[in-house]
């Protein structure tokens, strides 16, 4: 390195702001891991030393340093520091893609035994089961398990801890929960205990412990736990001078803080096989299965299977998984959440937009509706369950202004009729002068127009303000002979959040799709073809484009990075600390032209992986609107791009625009496999290791053989060895 590297990357010169003379040589302990890794990549890909360097190492030298460095990095990967780094989602793609899917790795897959901190969504459901409709108490019980909100998948078992902040919130919540249980919504066993004279019998005490365990630890207590907590309960009564309520209170609180209410156990407490692996115990499997698809504890059927030992092999596990997947009554929020975290379109409302730019009071409402429509697209595609990934990337059909997947067409027709009658009632009346409160007489007349207006929430919310919001949009629609968007109208409970009631909102919202409010005839049958030359799939959906933009500009780098990392399983290093990553302002240049700065040698190294992909999306502005002219400079948009260094020769090549890029990506095996790697990470809660190769290959085959069924792929993943076996790490 002194001979070939430090000359340009040392004390005298530090090209690309990289210094190699300062590196820690304790590579195998994971020190300076990122940089050593980068060096390895550069050497292996022959990027360094550069072609025009004076002294090139000869082949033997190069091979030897690559081999040595490779071995050191292998050791680094299993060092604590290395494991921590590699355990992070952003490092997932470091595992060699081709190796993973080569079929040459014969090791039997497993996961390391672990404690996995409670998922906040599961806690929310637990809270809801306790507080039910007492929404004030529900709101006060805050979320103790905070998850980072970084892009990508955040619920990894590695690196999630319960600490002081968690405990303080848990304690506050525990007090509230127990107060509710003992004063407001009192379960029978607690009531019995509180109403008897004197202390409870041991059986009663045990019943109380059992109840609370099931409520908060989501499983029955073991015999040992039962005895311990029962004795604790009875002892506390004695210590408080015979105060049964006080004793009960403290015991119930303790159960709420039990470490197993905080960490899921996935230690592999079942039988050992001949390869040093242990299978998850029946209990552990029941939880693992339940929490993989739902936010609820195992249901009766699952518990029965566990208790009767009918959960021990992949076929039995698959049966349970398929049962849950097929049952529409079982809520499976984990599925939609995966797609949200993978695509990231749900982050759109977080991107701050200056209200001045679109005369809107509450940007969140428009953004939320856009996200909702992306959700609908995902859910619809999942329901069809055919060619899922390609559909999501290349579909020409979208949902706009639609009320939801469960909507019955007859129902929709009725709503349209109701709206028309509302419009006809008001059109000749001075609705612009309405006060907030409607007169009782007027209310009655409206209720008579159509049964929908008698429905409670509608009745409650009908106001002058609402009419003043509805009428401008309805006028535009009916005067132009258009069907209005039904999503915009509060007709039933629970739809309020997504509604764009003001005309400003609707105009703006539609413009995100390049639709015009006085021309858009909202189809009843959705999804419908929007404009196949301009938009295909989720990556040209306004919500995705907005989520991957800045406040006032597009962000081709983020967009390009997304494709490189999520669809091509590539890796882009972080911005070097010394770089001030700011795009120069210039009113006469397009953003693409202003990005010329990244073409400098030290920048292009990384930017070549992102820019040529992201620039294709320049055809869409930071609100997701398709455009051919750049507003700021007046110049035409150049949306040509390049797929390059994907690792697949047939995938590489120029593209004219984003639509072409999407179609090319939609057909690619590598893209499909990258998608499956990400699904693996989400459902396993960790990055893949080389030893997971068989699992990934099987999941890929399941997907392909079933014609692109996401469910089939998922069932394969969740009954794989990686999912059900545990094997300890080698001791250091």
């Amino acid at each position, binding site marked *: 390195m002194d001979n070939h590297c430090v000359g340009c990357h040392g004390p005298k010169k530090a090209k690309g702001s990289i210094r190699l003379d300062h590196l820690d040589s304790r590579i195998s302990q994971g020190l300076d891991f990122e940089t050593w890794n980068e060096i390895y990549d550069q050497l292996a890909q022959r990027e360094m030393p550069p072609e025009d360097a004076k002294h090139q190492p000869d082949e033997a030298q190069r091979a030897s340093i690559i081999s040595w460095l490779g071995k050191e990095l292998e050791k680094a990967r299993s060092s604590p520091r290395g494991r921590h780094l590699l355990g992070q989602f952003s490092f997932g793609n470091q595992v060699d893609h081709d190796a993973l899917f080569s079929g040459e790795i014969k090791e039997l897959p497993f996961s390391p035994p672990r404690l996995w901190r409670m998922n906040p969504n599961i806690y929310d459901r637990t809270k809801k089961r306790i507080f039910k409709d007492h929404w004030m108490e529900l709101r006060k019980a805050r979320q103790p398990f*905070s998850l980072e909100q970084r892009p990508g998948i955040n619920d990894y078992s590695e690196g999630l*801890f*319960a600490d002081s902040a968690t405990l303080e919130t848990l304690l506050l919540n525990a007090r509230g929960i127990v107060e509710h249980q003992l004063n407001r919504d009192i379960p029978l066993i607690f009531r019995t205990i509180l109403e008897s004279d004197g202390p409870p019998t041991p059986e009663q005490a045990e019943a109380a412990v059992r109840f609370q365990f099931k409520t908060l630890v989501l499983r029955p207590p073991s015999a040992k736990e039962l005895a311990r907590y029962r004795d604790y309960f009875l002892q506390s009564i004695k210590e408080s001078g015979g105060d049964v309520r006080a004793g009960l209170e*403290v015991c119930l609180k303790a159960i709420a803080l039990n470490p197993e209410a905080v960490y899921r156990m996935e*230690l592999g407490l079942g039988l050992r096989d001949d390869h040093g692996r242990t299978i998850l115990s029946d209990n552990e499997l029941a939880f693992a299965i339940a929490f993989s698809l739902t936010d609820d504890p195992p249901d009766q059927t699952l518990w029965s299977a566990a208790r009767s030992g009918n959960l021990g092999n992949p076929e039995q596990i698959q049966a349970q998984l398929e049962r849950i997947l097929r049952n529409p009554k079982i809520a499976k929020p984990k599925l939609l959440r995966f797609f949200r975290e993978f695509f990231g379109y749900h982050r759109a409302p977080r991107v701050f937009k200056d209200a001045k730019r679109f005369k809107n*009071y509450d940007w969140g409402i428009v953004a939320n509706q856009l996200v909702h429509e992306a959700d609908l697209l995902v859910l619809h595609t999942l329901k069809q369950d055919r060619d899922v990934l390609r559909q999501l990337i290349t579909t020409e059909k979208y949902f706009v202004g639609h009320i939801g997947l469960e909507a019955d067409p007859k129902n929709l027709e009725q709503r349209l009729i109701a709206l028309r009658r509302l419009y006809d009632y008001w059109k000749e009346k001075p609705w612009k002068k309405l006060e907030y409160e409607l007169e009782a007489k007027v209310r009655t007349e409206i209720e008579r127009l159509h049964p929908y207006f008698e429905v409670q929430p509608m009745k409650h919310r009908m106001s002058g303000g609402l009419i003043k919001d509805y009428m401008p949009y309805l006028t535009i629609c009916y005067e132009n002979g258009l069907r209005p968007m039904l999503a915009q109208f509060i007709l039933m409970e629970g739809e309020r959040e997504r509604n764009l009631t003001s005309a400003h909102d609707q105009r703006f919202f539609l413009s995100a799709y390049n639709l015009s409010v006085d021309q858009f005839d909202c189809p009843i049958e959705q999804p419908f073809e929007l404009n196949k030359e301009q938009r295909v799939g989720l990556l040209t959906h306004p919500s995705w484009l907005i989520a991957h933009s800045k406040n006032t500009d597009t962000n081709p780098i983020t967009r390009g990075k997304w494709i490189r990392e999520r669809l091509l399983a590539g890796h882009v290093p972080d911005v070097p600390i010394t770089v001030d990553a700011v795009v120069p302002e210039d009113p006469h240049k397009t953003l693409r032209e202003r990005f010329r700065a990244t073409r400098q040698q030290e920048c292009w190294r990384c930017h070549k992986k992102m820019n040529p992909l992201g620039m294709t999306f320049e055809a869409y502005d930071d609100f997701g609107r398709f455009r051919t002219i750049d507003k700021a400079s007046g110049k035409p948009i150049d949306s040509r791009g390049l797929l390059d260094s994907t690792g697949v020769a047939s995938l590489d090549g120029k593209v004219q625009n984003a639509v072409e890029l999407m179609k090319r990506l939609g057909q690619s095996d590598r893209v499909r496999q990258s998608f499956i790697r990400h699904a693996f990470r989400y459902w396993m809660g960790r990055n893949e290791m080389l030893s997971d190769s068989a699992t990934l290959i099987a999941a890929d085959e399941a997907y392909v053989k079933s014609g692109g069924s996401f469910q089939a792929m998922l069932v394969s993943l969740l009954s794989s060895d990686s999912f059900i076996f545990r094997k*300890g790490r080698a001791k250091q």
Partner: protein
Amino acid sequence: MNSQSTSRRAFLKHFSFGSGGALLSPLLGQLAAAADGITGAFPQRFVFLVKSSGLTPKAITPELLRGKKATGSAPLRVSLKGITLPDSLRALESFKDQLAIVQGFSGKMCLAGHTSYFGAMGVHASPSETSSGRPLRATIDTRLSSQHSSPFGHVGLALRGRAVGGAGDPIPQGTLYPGLSALAPGRELPYQASPDQAFDQLFGSAIGSKKGRKRYDLETGMLDFLSDDIKQLRKKVPSAEQDKLNHYLLAFEDLQERRKKLLTMSKAIRDGAPKLTEKFSSQLGIDRLASHFELAASCLITGLSNGVTIRMDNLEHVYTGLGLTEQNVHAIGHGTGSNGKSAEECRDVIRSYHISLMASLAEKLRSIPEGNGTMLDNTMIVYLSDAGEAHHGALHEWPFLIVGGCGGRLTLPGNYLRMPDYGQSGHGTIGNLYTSFLNAYGDPIDHFGDPDFSLEREGLPQRGPISSLIA
């Protein structure tokens, strides 16, 4: 735990004072400081009082100074000596030399409208009126008070919670989250709405009903019981994963540490705690607010906390206790009068009431000697609104009232200050104001809060403290 509090604890253990309990804390502080060789260095105290519906700039400006603006790029600064305070600030007359009226800082990086949520004290935008979003950083109140550790850290007390609730919401009980203060990014400060529960939580270790004491002791035992549970579980878990349980165990041990610390302060607590009257469990707003102020005073005097934020009201609140029975704060903010008074007059009534509470707190602190002066010398009480300068604040200016000596760190006490207008050279944002506070109190931060991008684009960058505010 810094050396000051260790010696404080040592003194508490070995000294016994008679009935001069109220003198306990500051006297000990002085003794402790002397023992440590530091003179005049007392832990600084911070109280933030946050009202809803805006704080009207005109109403807190003395008649003589109405309409007066800054000239050039320097702020307008006028001593309050000899100047008549506006009507609603009359209760602060005797505190004039330690009163600062601070006007003209903008906060346009925050959410304008009914409330800025974490913006008012955290200087960043929130998603929308109905969503406080995630706090991006520790807010100024907790950040200032966290400089010196105290058993309870920063305390939040609230009459009402989030600015916008449901019309006709009953008075809240128990813990709530108004979306105003944060301890760290993503970590909101919980507030206590029930004065009696707050009393139990804060003073229950040493005082209060027998039942409260019993509950407290039982909870201490529970923490030990659970620590044992965790240790047992830890044995079964592979070493690579034990860290996770260790974190959880440490959390219990920290909590126990804090509770033990409280035990050593029991005499100070007993002497400094407020008297638990029926007001503490009253459902009447003015009783609860008065109780919160008493709790705040006692927290500071006993040293249980160095920082308190009080959420004074919200838009749903109806000040029946002040004779304003017909309209809530929201309606008044929109210009509807109540009980024969115009909207402006109603706002005056509410503001005067708040100021009188502020004055009585200041009075309590002023009555306790500390060093060569009083506790008030080393306290900063800030009064502001989470909606800025109006019911629907536009946030081009954001009024503040500050009472207290501020430990001599700021040049503000005793002055009226108005910054140059928004968009003029020399203008500052609340980010600059808070940065000045932090720097004045020894936290040399570059800049606190998000910048105002519009100002930056117009070539008016605002970073850093304003040196003329710092002593």
